[in-house]
Each structure stands twice: as C-alpha cells, then as structure tokens.
C-alpha cells in the first residue's frame, strides 16, 4: 500500500516491530496494575455470574445438600490451606522484590508454584474419587455445576502457575520485577474465588 507523505513531514525511521512501552501513568497507579485490576473486574463478573446462577439453583433444589455431602470436605479443606499458603508466599515474593532481593523473590515464587501444583494434584485425586463413585459431570445438575465451577477455577490455577513461572524467569534475569506484584494480585484473586467455591460446593451440604 503506497501512502503519501504530508508536506513538511519530518523523516521518520521505518516503523519498528518493537511495541512501545507505556510511557507514563497519568493517574498515580502504574499502568500494569491498572490493567490487571480491570482484567480481574471482568473475571469477577464471569465467576460472579456462575456463583449467582448456582446459588439461585441451589435455593430451588434443597435436595442438592445430600449430593454435596459426597464431596471430599477434608481434601477441600486441605486445599484451602494449601492455596492460602501459596498466597502468603506470593506476598513474600512481592515483599522481597520491593526490598530488591530477587533471589529470595524467585524462591518464594517457586514455593507458590509448588503449592499450586499440590492443589491441582489433590483436586485431580478428588475428581477421580468422585467419578469412580459415579458422580460424573453428567450425573445430575449439581455435579455439572460442581465440575464446571471447580474446573474453571482449576484452569485459572493452571494459568496462574504458567504466569508465575514466566514472571519468575524474567525476574531471575532482573527484568520486569514489578510484574511480581501483578501476577500476585491475580493469584490472590484465584485464592478468593476458591474461598467462595469451597463453602458453596462442599460445606453447604445439609440442605
């Protein structure tokens, strides 16, 4: 496509493929943090929609309480603890980056990744146990909701693990240390979602 140049236009270097980094923050909030909060706002609506739908159905179907009793409450409780701990180590990673201790930060992030991995292993164990008992995703609407909601959450955990590992690799090279905070905010969100899912799906089991 040939494009004309306007008269008096200064000579411009050929367009470089490199994207421009955001030059400034007009508000005092760093652009990355602002972006991650808006991203989380959209996530809140996705999970919020699902949780609302589930609660409305749950009120209509008191008999689901008996089904919920078949979930593995102890495994869920352990997982809650595991996920909360992983959030703690993310906070420590952020704190270490702020203090300029990148080695400690990368160590703490590895601990978060480990905890996230443990969470997924326990969740996989639960799924196996439930499916073997016949509680498959199509065994009834309660189980459809259970698998859809925890499954979507597990995908977010998995995505978080990949994101933390990517940020960690960059931080080890000394690049983009501010992203530890952003990936941390996301990780806490994943944690908070679980705090809603655990009581709704596991504990509210007596109808």
């Amino acid at each position, binding site marked *: *496509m040939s494009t004309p140049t306007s008269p008096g236009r200064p000579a411009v270097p*050929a*367009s470089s493929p490199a994207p*421009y980094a*955001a030059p400034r923050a007009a508000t005092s909030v760093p652009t990355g943090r602002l972006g991650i909060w808006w991203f989380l706002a959209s*996530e809140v609506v996705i999970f*919020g929609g699902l949780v609302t739908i589930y609660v409305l159905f749950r009120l209509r179907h008191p008999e689901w309480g008996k089904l919920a009793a078949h979930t593995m409450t102890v495994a869920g409780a352990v997982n809650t603890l595991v996920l909360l701990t992983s959030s703690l180590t993310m906070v420590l990673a952020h704190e270490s980056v702020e203090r300029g201790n990148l080695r400690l930060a990368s160590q703490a992030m590895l601990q978060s990744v480990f905890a996230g991995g443990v969470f997924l292993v326990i969740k996989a164990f639960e799924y196996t146990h439930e499916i073997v008992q016949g509680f498959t995703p*199509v065994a009834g609407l309660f189980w459809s909701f259970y698998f859809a909601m925890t499954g979507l959450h597990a995908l977010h955990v998995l995505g978080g693990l990949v994101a933390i590992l990517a940020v960690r690799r960059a931080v080890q090279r000394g690049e983009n240390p501010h992203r530890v905070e952003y990936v941390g905010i996301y990780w806490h969100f994943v944690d908070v979602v679980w705090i809603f899912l655990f009581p709704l799906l596991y504990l509210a089991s007596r109808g």
Partner: protein
Amino acid sequence: MSHDGHAEAAGLWSRIFSTDHKVIAKQYLFTGIAMAFLGGILAQIMRLQLSNPGHPVPGLGVVQGIKYNATVTMHGTVMIFWVAMPLLLGAFGNFLIPLMVGTRDMAFPRLNMLSYWTFFLSTVVLVSSFLVPGGPSPVGWTAYPPLSAIPAYSGNTWGVHLWILAVALELVAFLMGGINYITTAINLRAPGMRMRDLPLVVWMQIAASIIFLFSVGPLVAGAVMLLLDRTAGTGFYNPAAGGDPLLFQHLFWFFGHPEVYVLLLPGLGIVAEILPVFSRKPIFGYRMIVWSTVVTGLLSFVVWAHHQFVSGIDPRLAAPFSLTTILISVPVAVTLFCFMATLYRGSIEFKTPMLFALGMMAVFLIGGVTGILNGSAAADIYIHDTYFVVAHFHYALIPPVFFSFFAGIYYWYPKMFGRMMNETLGRLHFLGTFLFVNVTFLPMFVMGLRGYPRRVYDPSQFVALGNMGGMQILATIGTAGLLFSQVPLLINFFGSMKRGRVAGANPWRANTLEWLAPSPPQHGNFDEIPSVYRWPYEYSAPGRDNDWYPQHVAPEGALSRKAG
C-alpha cells in the same frame, strides 16, 4: 502504515502481526467491512425470499425452513458481532484512543495484537460454519434453548457448535481489547490532559468498554454451559434434568441489552466529534453528555428483562423493567438535545461526515422513539415478535453502526490513509443510504402493527394478515438499493488511497490531538508527546484569528498578551 522503501520487505511479518494500534485498527476495519458485505448479502437473500414467497431465490433455490432460519441467524450474528463490534470498537477504538489522548500506542500493544488475532480466529470459525454438513446455525442470533441446547430440535449439530465457539472467542477478543482501551484512556493521557479534556468519543469508548466488560462474563460462562449441554450431556438448560431454559435468556440479555449501548455510545461519540468541527462551535453541554453516558451505562444493566415480557417471567418483574427501559431514553435524549443545541446558530458546513452525522441523529430518533413502545410491557405484548420490533431495532442500530461508521470514515480517512475522500461520491453515498434505509424499514413498522410475525419465510401463509406483498416488495427494493448505494463508498474508499487529494495533518481545522500527528501517523504517532492546554471543543473563540484552537497549542504568554 508508512515505511521507508528498504524496510518494506523485512517487515512483512511484523506488519501482519503488528502491535501498532493503527495497523490493528485497519485490520479490524477491513475484516469488518468484508463481514458487512456477507451480512448484507444474507439480508438480501431473506428479502428476495420474502417478496417472492414460494419461488426460488436465484442460485439458492427456495430459502425456507432451516435454510431461512440459518440466513436470519447468521445475518444477525454477523452484523452485531462481526460488523458492529470490529468497526465501532475495533477500528475506531484502536485508531482514535491513543492518538486522541496523545500517546504512542495502546497500554498493552501485544495484548492488542492478541485481541485482533483472537477475533480473526473467531471469524474463521464462524465462516467455516457455512461449510460444515447441515450448514450454519439456524437457532436465531439469540440462540434460545431448548432449540439451541438439543441438536435434534434444530436439526443442526456442527453449525451451532461452531457458532457458540465463534461467539465466545469473539467476546473474549473484545474483552482483551476493552481492558486495553480503558487502561490507555485512563493512564496514558498526555501531560496536562485532564479527564474533562478527553474528546467525547474517547469517553464513549471507555464507557462502552466498561459496559461490555461488566456484562459479558455471565454470557461467556453461559455459552460454555450451552456447549456442554450440547456436547457433554449436562442439563443446565434442560428442565428434565432440573435445568432452566429461561436461564439462558437472562444470561443472553444481561449481556445483549447492554451490548446495544456498547454499540450506540461509540456511534454517538463519533457524531459528537464531527458536529462541533462542521458547525465551528463548541459542543453544547460537554459535562451533561458525559454524565448522560454514565447514567445510560448504569441503567443499561437493569433493562434486560424487557426482552422477556412474553417468556414466562414473573409478571411483577415486568413493571420495573418497563420503568427502567423507558427511563433510559432520558439520558440518551439529553445527549441528542445537546447535539442539536450544538448546531444552533453554528456555521454549518454540509460535508459528507456532517451529512452522515446528521443522518445518524435523524434515523436514530425514530429508533429511539419506537423503543419506548416496545419498552412498555402492555404495548410490547402486542407487538412482540412482529416486524415492528424488526423495524425498531434496525432503526436503533443502523444509525450508530452504519451512519456513525460512515461519518467517522469520511472524517478520519485523511488521518488513516493520508488523502481526502471524494465529496461528490460521498454525497451520493449518503443520499442512497439515507433514502434506502427508510424505504427498507418504514414499511416494516406498518407490517408489524398489522401483526406480521418475524422469522417467517412465507408471508403468504397468513391469509388473515391480508396482502402485504406490496410492502414486502418495497422493503426488498430498499435492501437492494442499500447494497448498491455502497458502490460509491467502495470506489471512493479504495480509489482515494491512490488518487485522493493529499490531506495534510489537519484538513478539517480540528482541535483534537490526532490532527497534530502527520497523516498517516508513523509508528509512535507523535514526534514529541504533546502537552494539552484546553478542552477539545474550543471553536470560534473570541479574540483569535483562527476559529479553531487545538488542544496542544500553548496559550500565548499571558505577559505578552497584556503588553499587546
């Protein structure tokens, strides 16, 4: 996008997978235009069938039953998700926001690129659904279960699967885009630019993106649930399994109605930019328009059930939803009155962008006023699912999606491609479009009030409705004329790229920052990031030689002015 000659070959890959907001804007633009012709042709197929019931449409045979339903479905889907969204938000949002706030690119250029290519993938999935056995989805663009949830009911398996997948991908693409728009406009503003110095179109793009972001999530979840119902055998929407088909209607319209404002607001924003420039007057009621936008956005979340007055919702819900629906016309009317007041005693120049901006207001007025009829539950029960509704939402959506888009294209084409478009062809395009939109859709109000139902492929079946053949033929002539009226646009659009008059940086003598950048702007937009000294609508300011006063021009030193 401009290049030095020698860099041309090396940069092919980076030109296709570009992170430059202007390239991405053009990618959205061309995809959207191509899809607009697909959507227009689908409309013409329907019209030909309706005006000649029982007889074959040339080349396609008799378009009836599933075939007709698929045509209706794909027309609606394509026009809303693959034309309106990429043109208004994808093209103009991407092109204008960084330029107008005075920055070099979007806040997250790579995310922006990912957004377009996700959209492109969704386009491929949608178009490929025309090629699968059974053809594209015939379940309506609203995809209500149980018709959409149980493949046996619609007689279509893969078309609907792909439709759901494509729509979900498209929504995710614009979610990524929206996060970028909001963050960019909030945080990348040039030094000195306060939020109240933002051009209104940027305000409207932010508002539209926020509305989209807060309404789309449940539908993304709902679409996945629908896909699971169809493929895995879950029963979210199946009453036999304890599910509820009404649930999908709620999820769909909780997104679907705010979506109307997602499309309307950027359209109004484009008009708001054009009116002051071609009236040489400041916009009237800047703050009122901004607040009206905010109120419209908030109200748009509590009107959705007016689509469900006859769906079996609790009748006690009908009154509050009628109320909010009628209420939302107030802030929109405030905006339109501000626009009219902007024209009052202005030095109006009837250039093509202005013609389309005025046309937008005129046509949208009819769409808005008839919306009040649909909004009150009592009237809606009579006109629900008739051609009255079809006429109403075309009058409501064609103005922002096409009139505003055309206005914006004629106005910003010099900035996008560096050359002016031809005025004569532009006027011809406007006259044809304005005339044939009304020829197409005015008869539908009459047909609708007489009770003619939508989504029916053979009007002659309803003997009781009497002979509406004349109006059907008139509407078909209208769509054909509308399609042909786009020929001058195409000639103008592609011809002006080579032959148009070189535009220069600021051909319209406008104030906003994009006119400071060269036409077309290079990668990075500005040689130096500008500083902003005033709001964008300082036209015909007293005591100045020029009747425009760009945002980036520093006021003459207070001292020297006093001395003079």
